[in-house]
């Protein structure tokens, strides 16, 4: 911005800690057109002083040198069309964390102010996206979660298209009469919610139901998805604003459970196979059609077992309890025995568990079932680790295996790898390349034809999935979010769950979809940078088609043209800036966050000469977790080395390596990057940012070594949101290390 005004707050210990007159002077000499200080800038008078300068047109860029950007957001919110705001955290990073009146403290404040002013100068006004946004929501899957999502979205005023691949709606619950209670007193079977929901959905004029239909192509981007379906009624094309994927789960393939008697006797069945018997009230052994006298339920059949499903499906215990209760009510003479490893009855299901214990008098037996074998016309179940403290066997007429859930998802990333491999085989460029591609294609062959959404995305036709095939970005912090903006997962495809949870999920995902549509209507992006509208700007003239951005974007925002030039889809983009970090040509920028802006901030840090023995440290902190943790540490009046200069970044993945090079060539002695946890249990809000940062910094460290600079001068640290206590030590230890290494030899060049 051209005319930057600096507003200095002297409250909250800032005035007592710093020579604010010197700061004001610095602001003047650094080119501020307006400088003012206020003893309480967030009070109405202070805010009014900022507003009047903006309204008078005196300033178009505002630097608020007060508290952290995470505080007083309401007070300092200014119209982004009129003015750009930069916050300098004098309170957290200086006044509360460093000794008052010290020269190092003053130097720190001055550096931070200079950095803030430079950034404000480098900002440009952002334009809002102004594309037409479709109001319709597409729901994929007509089970409980999908039906509930359709009903909820319609209730929120959106036209809904519900696509179901099979001929009938209802999913798993279509064959189930009663469910585990989800309402007080939680002690009796409850009628399935499905029939009522089905009636409501069929009767709702805003919901179009397409059964026997599959998605053949989904192109475009959120707000403007171009959907192509194929079904009984032929091909059809329409547009929707958002998509809910509620494709559910299927029971684990029981044919792999030979050790539990599957195949040895037809009387070993799964919980899913028991459902029709309960629904039709005809309990019969498959072998001879006679009613069983004793039924053994085997919990965790193929679950929590590294050879099968290593996770717990969380609802099989409740399902078995429900089936026991139903059997007890219809056939009280039938004995049921449930063998479990741990009976898991979360939440209010505990009450139902007690009711089953008390009413049905079932034999609930802790123990791991080792095997089920045919014996004398019946079945013999052998159990180890029972509470009797010995191996036991018990006879039964019918064995019901409580199998876990496998999500009905498609692994978009692997399908794309398979397609790429096939292309390479076809191109046949070299013998070795073709061989490698053939091997890869063979190992991925089982993904052939598994597509569900058929997204026309460069990164693959379906949602990327987590370890066990569940498409989700972070199930605790951000439920329903997936790694494709505008597509929300709901129900058992997202995580193993029971019908009550699936219905709730339908609501949740529909609300996320609705939220997205209204945000796009305002030209804004969604989670986690909700409200941000500055889209990425690609200066394509300088693009070398290296494809790093199209490859690394966690959200599949970038497609490619035939040459490999990125084609940006602003509505798919979450504004994380990972492309900005990836681009070796530095052609990606945002209005308020660019390679140049941060580089200029770094260059505005005053680096003392070697003789002063005052090293400088650049700390790049992820705004999502590390920076809030730093604020917390400041709130607790932690203190740390005064040589550290903190720059908040959108994500560690949004750190361009040129900043490291700039820092070191400027004579800054070391750079520390602090971001979220990575790996399987990642906490990165943009999934891959922290991972990528580590990889990139390894490359930087190699380069440093080649240039005879110590690799230790660049450090990447993972920090969880609650680890504020680690922050002072992180800085202090790094500073000590740098003292040990000696001054940056590039100082003064």
């Amino acid at each position, binding site marked *: 911005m051209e005319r930057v005004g600096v507003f200095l707050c002297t409250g909250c210990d800032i005035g007592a800690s710093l020579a604010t007159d010197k700061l004001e002077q610095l602001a003047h000499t650094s080119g501020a057109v307006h400088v003012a200080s206020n003893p309480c800038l967030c009070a109405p008078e202070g805010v009014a002083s900022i507003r009047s300068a903006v309204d008078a047109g005196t300033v178009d860029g505002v630097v608020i040198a007060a508290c952290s950007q995470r505080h007083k957001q309401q007070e300092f919110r200014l119209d982004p069309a009129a003015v750009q705001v930069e916050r300098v955290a004098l309170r957290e990073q200086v006044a509360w964390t460093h000794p008052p009146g010290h020269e190092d403290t003053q130097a720190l404040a001055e550096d931070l102010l200079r950095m803030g002013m430079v950034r404000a100068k480098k900002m440009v006004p952002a334009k809002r996206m102004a594309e037409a946004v479709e109001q319709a929501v597409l729901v994929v899957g007509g089970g409980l979660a999908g039906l509930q999502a359709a009903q909820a979205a319609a209730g929120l005023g959106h036209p809904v298209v519900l696509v179901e691949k099979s001929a009938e709606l209802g999913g798993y619950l279509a064959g189930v009469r009663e469910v585990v209670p989800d309402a007080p007193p939680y002690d009796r079977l409850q009628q399935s919610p499905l029939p009522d929901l089905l009636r409501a959905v069929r009767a709702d004029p805003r919901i179009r139901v397409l059964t026997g239909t599959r998605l053949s192509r989904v192109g475009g981007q959120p707000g403007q998805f171009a959907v192509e379906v194929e079904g009984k009624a032929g091909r059809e094309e329409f547009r929707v604003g958002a998509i809910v994927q509620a494709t559910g789960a299927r029971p684990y393939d029981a044919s792999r459970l030979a050790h539990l008697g599957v195949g040895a006797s037809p009387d070993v069945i799964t919980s899913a196979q028991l459902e029709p018997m309960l629904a039709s009230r005809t309990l019969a052994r498959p072998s001879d059609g006679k009613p069983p006298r004793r039924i053994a339920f085997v919990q965790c059949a193929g679950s929590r077992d590294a050879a099968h499903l290593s996770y717990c499906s969380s609802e099989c215990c409740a399902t078995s309890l429900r089936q026991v209760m139903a059997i007890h009510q219809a056939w009280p003479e039938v*004995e049921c*025995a449930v063998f479990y490893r741990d*009976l898991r009855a979360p939440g209010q299901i505990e009450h139902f568990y*007690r009711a089953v*214990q*008390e009413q049905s*008098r079932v*034999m*609930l*037996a*802790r123990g791991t079932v080792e095997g089920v074998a045919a014996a004398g016309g019946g079945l*013999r179940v*052998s*159990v180890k680790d029972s*509470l*009797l*403290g*010995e*191996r*036991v*066997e*018990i*006879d039964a007429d019918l064995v019901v295996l409580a199998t876990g859930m496998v999500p009905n998802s498609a692994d978009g990333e692997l399908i794309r790898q398979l397609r790429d491999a096939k292309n390479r085989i076809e191109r046949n460029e070299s013998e070795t390349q073709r061989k490698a591609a053939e091997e890869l294609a063979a190992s991925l062959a089982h993904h052939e034809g598994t597509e569900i959404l058929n997204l026309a995305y460069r990164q693959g036709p379906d949602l990327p999935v987590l370890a066990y095939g569940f498409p989700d970005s972070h199930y605790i912090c951000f439920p329903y979010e997936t790694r494709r903006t505008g597509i929300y997962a709901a129900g058992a495809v997202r995580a193993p769950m029971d019908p009550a949870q699936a219905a709730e999920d339908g609501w949740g995902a529909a609300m996320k979809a609705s939220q997205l549509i209204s945000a796009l209507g305002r030209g804004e992006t969604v989670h986690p940078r909700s409200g941000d509208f500055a889209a990425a700007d690609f200066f394509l003239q300088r693009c070398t088609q290296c494809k790093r951005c199209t490859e690394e974007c966690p959200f599949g925002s970038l497609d490619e043209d035939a040459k490999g030039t990125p084609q940006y889809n602003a509505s798919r983009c979450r504004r994380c800036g990972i492309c900005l970090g990836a681009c070796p040509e530095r052609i990606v920028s945002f209005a308020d966050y660019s390679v140049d802006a941060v580089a200029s901030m770094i260059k505005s840090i005053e680096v003392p000469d070697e003789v002063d023995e005052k090293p400088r440290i650049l700390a790049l902190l992820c705004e999502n977790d590390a920076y809030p943790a730093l604020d917390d540490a400041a709130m607790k009046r932690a203190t740390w080395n005064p040589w550290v200069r903190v720059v908040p970044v959108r994500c560690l993945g949004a750190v361009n390596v040129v900043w490291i090079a700039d820092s070191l060539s400027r004579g800054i002695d070391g750079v520390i990057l602090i971001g979220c946890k990575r790996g399987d249990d990642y906490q990165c809000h943009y999934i891959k940012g922290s991972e990528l940062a580590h990889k990139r910094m390894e490359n930087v460290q190699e380069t440093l070594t080649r240039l005879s600079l110590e690799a230790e001068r660049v450090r990447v640290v993972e920090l969880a949101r609650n680890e504020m206590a680690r922050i002072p030590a992180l800085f202090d230890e790094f500073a000590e290390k740098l003292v040990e290494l000696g001054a940056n030899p590039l100082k003064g060049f």
Partner: protein
Amino acid sequence: MATATTISPSREFRDEFLRRGGGDAVRCFQCATCSAACDLTTPERVFPRRQMLWAQWGLVDRLASDPSIWLCHQCNDCSVRCPRDARPGDAMQAIRALVVERVGAPRFMAQLVGRARSTWPLLLGLPVLAWALFILVVNGFAVPRTPLVYGDVVPVWMVYSVFLPAAAFALGAAFLGARRGWAAWGEGAARNGSLLEGLAAVASDVLWHRRFRACGAGRPRWAGHFLLMWGFIGALATTTLLGVLMDVFGVKTPLPQVHAVKMLGNASAVLLGVGVVWLVLNRAAGGEAAGRTRAFDAFLLVLVILVVFSGIGAELARLFLPVPVALAIYVLHLGTVLSLFLTFPFSKLAHALYRTLAMAHERLTGQRSPS
């Protein structure tokens, strides 16, 4: 691989167990809070968690051959601590009731007493009626002189002709039941010493209620039980001494109030009266600490109340009330005492037998050091 035991749960036992007061035990989820509260638990024998499991699963054979259930005094320290309100103390009581019925001989008597909930009119009424008829047939309730002397209406030979066979029956039945239990326990653990040695070793524990006094939640019960037990011992001693006095020394009844044996009898009556009232009040105060009162408990309590107060009543009525009333009370006393004799090996009173034996067994197996 260790060989597996085939378990065959008894549905009948489970159902019966639940009906007889074990109903809360279905809630047990085997957390073993009860075992942490119970001092019968040893590292090798987790009590009563394991017994709860056996009962839930209907493993009746294991319960029947387990002496631990008899070592339990139903302190209810477990019941008051149970997070699921499964009342292990009550479950143990229900198990004891079923085991007494199972090992008792003759079987029909065991079952008759076991079903006291419906058979109590028979169990109480029949002996009383039998006595009334017996007297009617022999002398038509003729009262030759006043003041009333019970020995005139019911001479000693009548008393002997009823109670000696009844006592023989009770002892015989108790012997059979005890032998079954003793043998079954012996299979589970080797005993080192004879039954007599075992009994001698635990005698003072039993007589002074040492174990009972160690109870927590159920502690208020011990004093009532202590008085009642000594009252019974006193009454037994009185009867024996009286028999000796009458048959050997030709002493005539009624004895004067200052006679030593009379005083022993009266003292016993006071102990019995205070003891049984104490126990009834303790149950009436209710709560988990007292345990639930089932037919098994109620039958014995009612029987003891009838015996004690008809005894005291008969003694007083002879002096202060009209003759027919006094005779009626006396007949009630004779009848209920007969009922007490006949039901002893099968009713709750059988614990006097099985618990003492179990304590002796435990001492002989060295599973527990003397308290």
